[in-house]
């Protein structure tokens, strides 16, 4: 699906950097990727890998130090005032913590309608009311709860309110920043199902940021794995699980426990030692070299680039060819 179509969103060598006391923190360190209309790209990585920063860079909350973020071909940092406002309608965000993402003083009807109010899209009171009711219905919330406060709801319900709010402006892209990781497993499934249903109905694209490789598979068309600010592997969803080539992808997958004691006992696992290094003083060479069980001399000296190994399957690893043979 990647050819012949102009991407909806295109990142070119994006670097987002923060000044910290010890130096420069390279949260996003040269990421290039494309996202097409109506597709879901899963962005997976551990905490501190820069995935949320990347999401917020796309939301125009952080300005990248280098590189470009293009939406429908236009650089989002070259926007005029009016374009900026239009951008906030086309691109929306769903947040991780359903307790922090709703204003405790706004009833959920007002929370859902915030976008409509800001952009003055509801002409009359009746319009606004109808809009809110339709949105609550779409996300499966009881419409009689429109004048209740967030603290009366469970985490899953609040997340639905957040989803309704992001839908209110009919966006073309929704950045979902760990939308399910604060929820119970059975609720996670419901929220993922809801997001899939909404995508079928409204055809928007998702950038689905998560650390959970088991849930992201249920919703993504393609998955990108991120480590220390760089994308190490990006491929169609099933390839990540069956034909993965990056040692980090493999380690991530093998670290996820399977809900079956028999399988779990017989499973061979790659246990990574140590922690993710600090993104302040990035090592030269491959960012994963320090923890990689397959690292060689070259990995410590030169940084591997994303290379297309198969159709649409990109890997940034010096030993990607051999990795295909190693199971």
């Amino acid at each position, binding site marked *: 699906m990647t050819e012949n179509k102009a991407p909806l969103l295109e990142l070119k060598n994006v670097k987002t950097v923060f000044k910290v006391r010890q130096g420069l923190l390279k949260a996003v360190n040269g990421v290039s990727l494309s996202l097409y209309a109506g597709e879901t790209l899963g962005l997976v990585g551990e905490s501190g890998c820069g995935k949320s920063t990347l999401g917020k860079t796309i939301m125009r909350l952080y300005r990248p130090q280098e590189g470009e973020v293009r939406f429908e071909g236009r650089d989002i940092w070259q926007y005029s005032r009016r374009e900026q406002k239009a951008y906030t309608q086309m691109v929306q965000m769903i947040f991780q913590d359903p307790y922090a993402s709703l204003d405790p*003083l706004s009833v959920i009807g007002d929370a859902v309608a915030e976008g409509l109010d800001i952009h003055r899209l509801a002409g009359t009171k009746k319009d606004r009311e109808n809009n809110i009711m339709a949105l609550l219905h779409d996300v499966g919330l009881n419409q009689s709860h429109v004048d209740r406060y967030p603290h009366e709801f*469970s985490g899953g319900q609040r997340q639905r309110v957040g989803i309704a709010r992001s839908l209110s402006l009919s966006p073309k892209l929704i950045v979902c920043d760990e939308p399910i990781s604060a929820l119970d497993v059975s609720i996670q499934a419901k929220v993922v199902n809801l997001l899939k249903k909404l995508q079928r109905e409204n055809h928007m694209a998702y950038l689905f940021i998560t650390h959970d490789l088991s849930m992201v598979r249920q919703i993504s068309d393609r998955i990108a794995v991120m480590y220390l600010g760089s994308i190490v592997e990006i491929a169609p969803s099933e390839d990540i699980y069956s034909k993965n080539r990056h040692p980090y992808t493999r380690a991530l997958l093998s670290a996820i426990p399977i809900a079956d004691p028999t399988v779990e006992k017989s499973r061979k696992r790659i246990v990574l030692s140590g922690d993710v290094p600090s993104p302040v003083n990035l090592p030269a060479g491959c960012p994963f070299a320090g923890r990689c069980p397959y690292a060689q001399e070259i990995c410590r000296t030169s940084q591997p680039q994303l290379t297309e190994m198969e159709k649409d399957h990109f890997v940034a690893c010096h030993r990607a060819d051999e990795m295909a043979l190693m199971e």
Partner: protein
Amino acid sequence: MSQLPKGTFTDADFTKTGAEIGLDPASSRKKTTYWRDVWRNFKKNKAAYVSLYVILLLILLVIFGPMMNPFDYRTNDYTAINNAPNTVHWFGTDTMGRDIWTRVWEGGRVSLLIALLGTLIPEAIGMAIGGISGYFGGKVDTVIMRLIDILMGIPSLIYMILLMLIFGSGNIMTLVIAISITGWMGSARATRGLILQLKGRDFVTASRTLGGSPSWIILRRLIPNTLGIRVVGITMSIPSVIFYEAFLSYIGLGVTPPMPSWGQLIKSAGENFRYYPYQFIIPCAMVGITMLCFNLIGDGLRDALDPRLRT
């Protein structure tokens, strides 16, 4: 399986009916709003609850007290000088024969009005400036904060005296302006601190991603969320303004006689305290009770608003 009761079951008992998914729990619970919750917790604090009624009573007396007897606050009656409290003059009379009941409530009007305006006006100014400073951060923040540092370094009495010279001492508005000019800085700092905490919260980011302008975010999201916490500070600062007014009157910078205020009453009665203690004690008690009650209310509010105590 022997422990199972050998009940009598019917076939219908074991016929599949499928789930009847009920309403979710939130709809069956009593509806509570944030403020209703706060009120419920506030009522639990008996001292604060009683204080609230005492203050309401004081306000009623301040409004209607002077109408309750035929005297007014400035007419001298030399036939009744320094009368002790009696059935005609309920709180007695002062050295010029003026009715103290009337003067206390008239003075209360002045004191409470100054307290109220002298709290709300600087609070509003402080919130606006603190909100801007906290939300925009960076250079704006640095400039505003350094300015406050400098202004705070100057003793407030100096402003007072200067302002009195400019606007002329003795009227209520001068006092309110003087108190406002010195009072907004503390509130600006407190508001800025709260806003710095709040602006990183997801619901504020959500407003930004929805395209909310800075004024939308500050007015709709940030300020309302700081209010709950600032209310405590506001309540607690009322007593200090009352006291400040009394202090200024006492040193001669307050309202000018014959216009009474609690501070003014205390000052003039102080000279004769040894002979006519009731003239001194009554206004002192009013100041004391008001300060105590506002402090207790503030205390109760702080507990009621504390999110950790809310279930």
